[in-house]
């Protein structure tokens, strides 16, 4: 019996569920680094958030009579929620659970499931619990390398913000009193860069579980680029525009003047790498046209800069991306692709129609 179907009769290797697994693989090194750096509690947070996401998806699937676990999107959402959590105490397990349930249940399922949500579920879940449990969500543990000093520590970004509100002026190497690794200190002596930037790049800083190692996130991002799951446009334009804005205007609040802002520390610290490679490139909530992607990324870069330097919060990636998610349908509506052989309709023709 011959199978008859419409052309094409061959298909590329890209498949939604496999792509989701690829994203998980790309995220794993950074997640494991977080577990190593912050201990078993980090692993517990990751497991709870993944389990919460899968369970919510499964139970809601029972309601809507769909079995959607196999598309893998709930797994990615759960993992991302977990990676966006600080290493919480064991008894605070309800926070990642609520975040995951909110992400899958409210942000994704109510709008029609995979492909229909207009906001990145993982980010929405994170922001929801951030504003609900602000103090717990802002307490960061000291990474393993500095554990001898204190149990909790500030992230470089929040420390910078505190120094700024206290009226401090100068670069991060002058303002911060956080511990640095010997390696970072020696490298910063040689190259003249901030030692905190070096530590942030290699992941020896406090922060959310999945966002601390810029290096491993970059590696995961490049893996996604090579497998053609994401394109270069959003990460490169996002990080690039943010870096340029930081350099141009980021020095002003720190009394350094225009065009003297720091670049490396802001780029490598906080959730920028995780956001730019894994959240802002989410298929569903970003524009589909190349031009739209660039507008989206520029907007993300601008809002991240605005919130980080001039807002009350030390961290702006999640809010910036969510803000641009909201604008995405509008971008989609107005940014059109240029058709092959497009001819401008002549004016006469338009008048004749009218």
């Amino acid at each position: 019996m011959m199978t008859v179907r419409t052309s094409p009769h061959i298909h590329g290797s890209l498949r939604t569920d496999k792509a989701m697994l690829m994203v998980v693989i790309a995220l794993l090194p950074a997640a494991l680094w977080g577990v190593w750096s912050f201990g078993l509690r980090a692993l517990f947070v990751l497991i709870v958030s993944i389990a919460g996401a899968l369970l919510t998806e499964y139970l809601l699937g029972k309601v809507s009579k769909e079995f959607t676990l196999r598309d893998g999107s709930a797994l990615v959402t759960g993992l991302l929620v977990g990676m966006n959590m600080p290493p919480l105490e064991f008894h605070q397990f309800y926070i990642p659970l609520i975040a995951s349930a909110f992400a899958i249940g409210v942000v994704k399922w109510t709008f029609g499931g995979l492909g229909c949500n207009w906001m990145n579920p993982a980010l929405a879940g994170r922001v929801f619990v951030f504003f609900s449990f602000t103090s717990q969500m802002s307490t960061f543990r000291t990474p393993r390398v500095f554990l001898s000093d204190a149990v909790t520590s500030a992230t470089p970004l929040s420390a910078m913000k505190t120094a700024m509100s206290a009226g401090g002026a100068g670069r991060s190497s002058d303002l911060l009193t956080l511990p640095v690794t010997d390696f970072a200190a020696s490298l910063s002596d040689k190259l003249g860069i901030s030692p905190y930037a070096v530590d942030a790049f290699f992941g020896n800083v406090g922060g959310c579980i999945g966002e601390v190692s810029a290096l491993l996130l970059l590696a995961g991002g490049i893996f996604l680029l090579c497998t053609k799951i994401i394109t270069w446009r959003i990460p490169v334009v996002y990080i690039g525009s943010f870096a340029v804005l930081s350099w141009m205007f980021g020095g002003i609040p720190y009394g350094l003047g225009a065009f003297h802002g720091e670049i490396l520390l802001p780029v490598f610290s906080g959730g920028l790498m995780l956001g730019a490679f894994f959240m802002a490139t989410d298929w569903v909530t970003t524009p589909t046209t190349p031009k739209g992607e660039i507008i989206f990324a520029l907007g993300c870069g601008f809002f991240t800069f605005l919130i980080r330097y001039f807002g009350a919060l030390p961290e702006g990636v999640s809010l910036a991306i969510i803000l641009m998610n909201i604008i995405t349908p509008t971008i989609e509506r107005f940014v059109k692709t240029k058709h092959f052989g497009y001819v401008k309709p002549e004016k006469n023709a338009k008048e004749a129609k009218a």
Partner: protein
Amino acid sequence: MKLATFRRGGVHPADRKELSKDKAIERLPLPSELIVSMSQHLGAPATPLKKKGDTVKKGEVIGSASSYVSADVHSPADGVVTDIRKVRVASGAVADAIVIKCDEEQSDPFTESYDWRSESSEELLKLIRSMGIVGMGGATFPTDVKLTVPMGKKVDALVINGVECEPYLTSDYRLMLERPDEMLEGVMAAAKILSPDRIIIGIEANKLDAAELLEQKIASNGYPITVQRLQMKYPQGDEKQLLKATIGKEVPSGKLPLDVGAVVCNASTAYAIYEAVRFHKPLFERICTISGESVNNPKNVIAPIGTKFSDLIAYAGGAKEDLVSLIGGGPMMGFAVADPDTPMVKGSGGVLMLPKMIEDVSFPCVLCGKCVQHCPMGLQPNKMFRNIKYGNYQAAMDLGLMDCKECGCCAYTCPSHLPLVQGFKLGKKLGRKKK
């Protein structure tokens, strides 16, 4: 040196030409029965001229062109008409077909050589029309219509399409390799009609040996032809993409290549033109690739028009057990057929036998934008598909649905395996009806 290609979109499927690339062209033993459809070409089907019981001669007109955009159909063999019935060809078109039972003894006409260089271009055009020549790349547009330049238009470039960008197919490649002199003569005959400023043969990078051979032949004959090597990228064999790649011009939406001063002609068509002007031989046989993972002996054969796919399969050593679909044409744009007795037509450059190539999964559209990225026409397949899905055909047409040529790049890359091309075919039909 970086090779030229078209700029926007396109995909890179594995070309799989190694299956039949090195198989020399063989002549298929004449099948006992031929089913010659009257719908061999784009445009109106031909009108059958024979009745049941009539005898036919090889090369005799058995169907006459019924309008300007139509072509004569000739008998591929000596024999008797046993039946005239409605038959479905691979593209799905149903038309009258003349069933011919072939005689044991076959005549061998069309050996006398004529000097076409002394004839005027009007005479050559007439000859091409009466020989029933159509574009053999798959679209099967009547060649004489294509070669007729309207008053006041000038042909800047004649582009010969040796791209063969569909995976698996090797018929044009074998032709260029084995009959380069004949093909080039056909090109020159077309050039005589059009008198273009330049003649370019576009060949993709997986056929560089053919490009080299053609260049040698061009040099030794002193033809004013250039061979342009192109990067491998599907759908470069489409005339709009080919013109963008070779002469850098974009055919405006809804217009023809002639509007940018170009005419595109397939390599096999050039060969058919050669046979028509040199031997006054009508188009009743063509080179066809029989390939795919599920055929025992992939081959390139010369087969008469009207040969049943089943005869081709039998000649190629039969199908393997894992055969799932039988396709007339290439894997990207070809048509799957249910009936192995479907006959070949003038546009059948290949018959493929494929095992299961596509997983039966589908997910909702995740708005990844891969289709937008890969659409060579710069369309937004995701939006058009959504509109068609909800019955809003006009909105889909406003988004440029009619510019879609169903090349399949969007469906090939869609991670959610949406039937995009199927949607567009449907949308075009229903959209036209509503108008």
